[in-house]
Structures are given as C-alpha cells and as structure tokens.
C-alpha cells in the first residue's frame, strides 16, 4: 500500500463548505414565511445547520481515510444498504405515497440517498478487481447486474429520481474506465426501447407528473401547480432577483416543497439569474476538481469513484434545476447539499470527502 502524502484539495474543500452553508441560508429563506403556520418550521433551519455540521464531520473523517481502505468495506456497505431498502419495502411506513424513510427516534434517514454512494463504491471495487477484463461483454453485463438490485428496489419505493440517477452513474463509470462504447450505446438504446414497459409500473401520481410536464395547464391546481408556481417564482426573479427574503411568491406559500426539492425556485426568485450562475458556478468548481482527479488518478478505483461522484452531483444539479424551471418533469431529486434534508446533505458531503481523499494521493 502506498501512503497518502499529498495535500488535500483546498479549493474543493472550501467550495463544498460554502455550498453547504449557502444551503442553510436558502433553507432559512424558503421556510421564512412557513413560520406562519406556527408549526415551528423555523426549526428546520437549525436542523439543516446541524445536518451540515454532521456532514462536515463525516467529510473530515472520510477525507482523512485512504479511499482504498474504504473500498474494503464496499461490498458490506452495499449489502447493508440493500437490506435497508428491502426492510423499507416490507415494513416501512408510507409517507407521501412512498416508502423512503427509516425513522430512528426523531431522525428520518433515507437509505435511497446513501445507495448513491455505495453503488459508486461497489462499482469501483468491482471494476478494480477486473481491471484487465474491463472491456469484455461479460464484465459489462456483470456490472449492470451488480447494481440492478439497487435500481429495482428504489424504483419500487417508488423513487423515480434516485433510481434514475444510478443509471448515468453506471454508464459514466463504465465509459471512463474503459468499457466498450458500443456496449454502452446498445445499453442506452435498449433502455429507451423498454421505457414504455416501465410506464405500466409507474404510480398514478408519477404518470400524472409526466403528463402534466407536457402541459402544466392541464391541471393548474393539481399536478401542474408546482411547476407553474415554480416557474413564476424563478421567472419573476429576472436578472438580479428580488433580494434576500423578498420573494413574493412566498406570500401564501403556494409552492409546496420550497425548502426541499424546489429550493432553487427560492434562489432564482430572490437572487435572479446572477445568483443562478453563481450557484451553478460553485457546483462547476466541484465538478471540475472531480474531473481533474479522475484524470490524474493512477488507479482504476480512484478514477471510478471520482467519475461516479462527479456524475452524481452534476446529474442532480442538472435535473433539479431543469425540473424547477419547467424543462423536465418533476422527479424529486434534491439540489446537492442545499435542499433541506439530512441524508442529502450528509451523502453529498461524504462524496466530497471521498474526492478529497483521492486528492491527497495525486497532489
């Protein structure tokens, strides 16, 4: 084993911390008017701040570890995570029509958030074991089969967004690590062809969301509602936004999930396009640093992890903002480390922690 001597990537570290802190401010802004309900939602800000702190502790712990050592536990973590998902399907309580949360005391955890990381780790260790035969069809199919249980279990919850994010992660890792391009392309084509087949598995509300995505005015008070409200919020923000806590769309709290999946509508309304560019720019810094690590990493595991985490973050940013602005159907993916939620925040910061661990090997 080589010792990790290099220094940690400070740019990456500071950007990630900055994003997480901004998240607390945005959650404050999004829940500001919610206090009217008197349900003490203002405490969400404090909770989010606590999540960020916990996430940062994880980040530091993970960053100080050797990522190759972490990989020793990849299979165990993956199996445990799958077990949690099975447990949820069998015994989990339903919330908003889905079984996503495991509740421990006052804390709810989303195993489907953690699977985003464990899938990346298990793929890295799998491909690392087969680094000589990566190009083979057999290896390609085995990789797909390896993560299929995770995709299916999450799809059954149902959590379309998270199930969906695992697929580009798989493709990106296989592609960068040297799988044959024609397999990847074939696979994508097959996936597209089988889409109508999945339609049958969708829950009614999911079908609704897709239909309404095509035409939100179909149902302005029902399923199209969120999209319209969110578009008005972002659109009326304009170039410079309306200013901190000045979003008028908040008046009657028309927009549900403002502090979670739709937090970008608050950012867009209050900070305008300038704010949106700045935010995407911050994510771009993380993504660029991650890509750099992927290209500089000498081992296939490091490459795979870096590519996986970069894909995870960029895909979520892309889908989240695109759905908030009405360019994509609402699939329920959070804005990494910004949307309210412990699992999302911690998982994103763990991801950055692993990237930092990789950075110590290459600098």
């Amino acid at each position, binding site marked *: 084993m080589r010792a990790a001597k290099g220094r940690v990537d400070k740019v990456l570290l500071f950007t990630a911390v900055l994003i997480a802190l901004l998240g607390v401010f945005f959650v404050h802004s999004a829940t500001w008017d919610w206090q009217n309900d008197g349900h003490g939602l203002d405490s969400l800000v404090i909770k989010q701040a606590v999540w960020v702190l916990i996430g940062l502790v994880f980040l530091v712990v993970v960053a100080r570890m050797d990522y190759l050592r972490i990989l020793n536990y990849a299979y165990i973590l993956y199996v445990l995570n799958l077990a949690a998902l099975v447990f949820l399907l069998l015994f989990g309580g339903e919330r908003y029509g889905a079984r996503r949360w495991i509740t421990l005391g006052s804390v709810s955890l989303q195993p489907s958030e953690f699977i985003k990381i464990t899938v990346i780790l298990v793929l890295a260790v799998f491909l690392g074991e087969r680094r000589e035969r990566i190009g083979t069809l057999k290896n390609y199919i085995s990789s797909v089969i390896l993560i299929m249980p995770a995709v299916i279990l999450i799809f059954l919850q149902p959590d379309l967004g998270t199930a969906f994010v695992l697929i580009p992660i798989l493709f990106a890792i296989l592609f960068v690590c040297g799988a044959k391009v024609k397999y990847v392309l074939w696979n994508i084509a097959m996936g597209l062809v089988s889409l109508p087949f999945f339609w049958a598995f969708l829950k009614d509300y999911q079908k609704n969301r897709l239909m309404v995505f095509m035409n939100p005015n179909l149902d302005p008070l029902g399923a199209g509602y969120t999209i319209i409200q969110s578009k008005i919020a972002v659109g009326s923000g304009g170039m410079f936004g309306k200013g901190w806590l000045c979003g008028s769309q908040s008046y009657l709290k028309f927009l549900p999930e403002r502090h979670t999946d739709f937090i970008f509508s608050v950012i867009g309304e209050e900070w305008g396009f300038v704010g949106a560019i700045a935010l*995407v720019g911050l994510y771009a810094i993380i993504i660029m640093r991650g890509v750099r690590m992927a290209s500089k990493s000498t081992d296939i595991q490091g490459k795979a992890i870096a590519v996986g985490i970069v894909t995870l973050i960029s895909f979520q940013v892309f889908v989240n903002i695109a759905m908030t602005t009405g360019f994509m159907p609402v699939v329920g993916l959070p804005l990494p480390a910004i949307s309210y939620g412990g699992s999302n925040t911690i998982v994103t910061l763990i991801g950055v922690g692993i990237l930092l661990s990789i950075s110590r090997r290459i600098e």
Partner: protein
Amino acid sequence: MRIGIFSLILIIAMVLLLAGVAYLQIGIHEKYKIMSEENRLKVLPLMAPRGSILDRKGRVLVEDILAFNVSVLYYRIKDANALAVELNSIFEMSKEELLSRIKESKKNPYSPVCIVEDIGMEKTVHMEELGMNHPDLVLQVSAKRKYIYEETASHVLGYVGLINRSEFKKLKHYGYRINDFVGRDGVEKYYDDYLRGKHGGKQIEVDHRGREAATLGFREPFPGRDIYLTIDLDLQKYCENLMEDRKGAIVAMDPSTGAVLAMVSAPAYDPEIFIDKEKRKRIKNVLSDHAYPLLNRAISGVYPPGSVFKTMTAVSALEESKATPKTVFNCSGSFTLGKTSFACWKEKGHGDQVLQDALKNSCNVYFFKMGLLSGADKISEYAGKFGFGSSSGIDLPGERSGTLPSTAWKSKNLNKKWYKGDTVNYSIGQGYLLTSPIQVARMMSVFANGGYLMKPYVVERVDDVRVNSGEKVFLDLSPETVSNIREGLKEVVNGYRGTGCNAKQKEFIVSGKTGTAQTSKGKNHGWFAGFAPFSSAKLTVVVFDEFGGKGGYYSAKTAGEIFKKAGDLGII
C-alpha cells in the same frame, strides 16, 4: 481521452442548463414580472371563520356571521373626490370621512382596503350593480362576530378587536393578517390560537381589466375550532339577573373538578361594542364608567375577604396543634391588646365558645385569640396552601393573585415591622389581605371535596378534545381538621341563628361562611362562600357584593337562590 468526452458532456449539460434558466429569467422574464409585479397576479384572501363558543350543553353563545364590506383598490381610483361623493349618496357617512378613508388606503395600493363595513343586504345588492362600472371598488365578504346573548357571560367570553399595527408586527409570523380580528379578553383571547381559523387564499391571474383569467394557486381556508365552555347558560343568566343593579361577582364551580358553571362580574358589558358600528358609539361610556364594567371582578378584582377567611385561621391553629375543636375561647364583646381594643360585631359578646360555635356566630374575638396562637406566618403558610396569594391558573387572561401578607412581606414591601395588632386583623380576613372571588371559591372547594385544591377552568373542550381535566393538588390536611371545619360551616347555615341562615335550603344541606369586610371607604363588602350538598358536594358558590353591606344578609340570600336554581337545573 474518454475523460475529455466525459467533461465535454458535462460542460454541454451545464451550458444548456444555464441557457434554460437565462431564457426563463431574462428571455421571458417580462411575462412573469408582469404577472408578479404589475398585479396581474392577485391573491384573494379566503377568510376562515372564527370558531364558535358554546356552553356546556352545546348552546351557541358566540359565532361568526357574514357581513359585506365595501373596499377600494387605490391604484385603480381615477378621481377620489368623485368616488367619495358617489359613496356618500349611498351610505350614511360624511364625504370627508369617506375621502379620508380612501386616502388612507394609499398605504396598500394594490390590495382591497375596507372603507365601509357591514353594509347590510339591501345595499349589498345595490353595490353589486354599481360595481360593474367601478374597477376601483371591491365588495368583500367578511365574518362578523355575533354575541348572541349580548352581555351574558361577557367576562368569560371576552371580546375581539381588529388587530392594530404593533400587534400585527408581533403576530404576523403566526399567520395574522392586517384585517384580522384578534381576541382581546376572556376566552376569545386565551384560546385565540384555537378559535382563529387559518385563512386560505386564491392566487389568480387577472386580465388588463382586472377580471379573473386563470386560477394559479389555491389554499384552502380552515375554519377555527369550536370551544365548549363549562358554563351553564341557564345558571349563568340566572346569576346575572340576581346581580342586576349590584356591583360584585359570582363564581359557581364544581368542587370535584374545578369546572366553572357560572362566572358573573357586575356590571357587565356587551362585547359587540367593539365590533358593531352602531354599538361602537357606546364604547366611550363603557370605558369611562367608574363601575369598570370591563373588569372581571371574579378573577381580576381583589378585595379583603373578611370573615370568610376565619376558616384559614382555624386550619392553621388545628394543623399546628395550637388549639383543638374543643378549645374554649371566651368572647366578652371586645378584645384588648396593649392599649388598643378590638371589637366583636356583637357588643354583648358571645361568651364561651368552641370552634363550631365560633364559626356559626362568626365571632371575631374567638379568632383573634386563635390567630395570635398560630401567628401570622403560620396563617399565611396555610392560606398559601389554599391558593391565596397566587393565581389559580384559570384559563382566562388578566387574573390577579392578590396579596397574602406575612411578617416578611410587610418588612419588604412596607418596610415596617409586623405588629400583633396586624395579626389580630389578619385572623378575621382584614388588613393587608386581598383575595379574588375565584380564590375564595377554590378555598371553599377544598372543604367541599375533602381536601383537594382544584385548578378552576372555563373551557371543557376544543371541538371534541378535552382540554382541562380537573387538575388537583392534595393538601395533606388531617381529616379531622377538614371534617371539624365542615361541621362548623354546616352550622353557619343550618344551626340555630347561624350567620349564614339566609342560604339555607330545604332539599339539600348548604354549608358555607359569610363575610363582611370593612373597607377604607366606609361601606363594607359582603361575601358568602359555600357548597352543597354537604356530602359529595356538587357546587361551590361564591357571592361577592362590592360595597354591598352585610354578607350574612344579601350575599347569603343570593347564594341560597343560586343553590336552589342549581337544584332545579339538576346540577345538584
């Protein structure tokens, strides 16, 4: 190489994303800006009615009824003067008043601001027709609070008022709006959170003429919750009639739970003076009335209790073994301490007496002597246990805890030494001691229920949820003390020439204690506090007559009538 392609895909994705956001925020920004800034996007509040207040049997005492108001949209007004003239021709409001209200609305130019309230059905129809040509006028429905029995139970119910600016600043984060009513006293205030509905609203897109073009958002209004009181409307009204043309208070409560069945403070007021435009003219009279009709004497008025307090002197002496029920004290008609002489109310004196006689006769000298044996601080210790000097915790705002004096209290607050003469006065409920009728009711209930101090309450449940449940504290008195005083209280009403004989009833045994408290103003306060029936008491009644003379006469008589009525109503 592959990493290059990978990053290229990422770059393209991010560029596309920003292009999309730019399209929305810069490209078609105008559309949404117009929607949100130029008021094409409107929020119409949907009022949620405030909950009703009902008595223990479900009879409605207070409810919201619909009222129509005329509001203006300032930004649409072309000629404020002409509008004032036109409205003046319809409503009985001066042109100047109308004009000033219209100008006032400039503060909220884009929202409808109410200028004429509660216009009545006929004029509503008229206004609807007129509104066709008036984009600057909006007819709004609002809820109006109706107090069905006017002055009945006004001190329990309280009243509501329009939220003012400073309240609004404090409360806006709790969902209050600028035109909201907020509870100002009584149950209306204490339970405001429950009574208040949660307003909903509709967000609409309007066309250039201000008409609704599309509904964009909807938030359902939730009506407030109904409050069921412990008050019995029949008993309450009966008690109020008894107090007509008198000043004072009545408390009738269930000694086994603390549920208040009637609470009267006289004089009373009509809560609608704060909301009804006709009745509003009477506010001034009510506010300047020297009888203070807004004051709830039952919980916020504190007075010397007089002889009612002799029970506390007895409790302290018995519990501290300074005397027994058989201990004899002689009353010669007066008692001399140093150079000062303290008189009994009976000049000839009561002679040799034991506890029961002394309570029955309400002998002062007996309790002077007993009080000196106990000492002021011991009396205070036990009176404090019985709830004097602290608030009862009743679910009404504005309760006062009164004064429970002691040697330490006097040196701290008056910077004076406590004299034995103070103890003499104190032992018969005079001097520095101040108590509220609800405190006296709690004290008497301890004897009624055999030793438990109850927390009184006026609200039974909110919708179907019970909110109070007979909270009690066991005082841990010796059973002999309680039963000896109970026997004495029974004698007061039922014994030969008992001081409380006016309260006596045929159907059941009433027990209690009278009190006549001297005041610095010369006139005396009258008290009667009692309970019935003797075993397993169902009702404690306290009658307080402010400057109402001898408690043995009027107050006891009134209490007797209340017990009788309670018997008729099936409460006893």
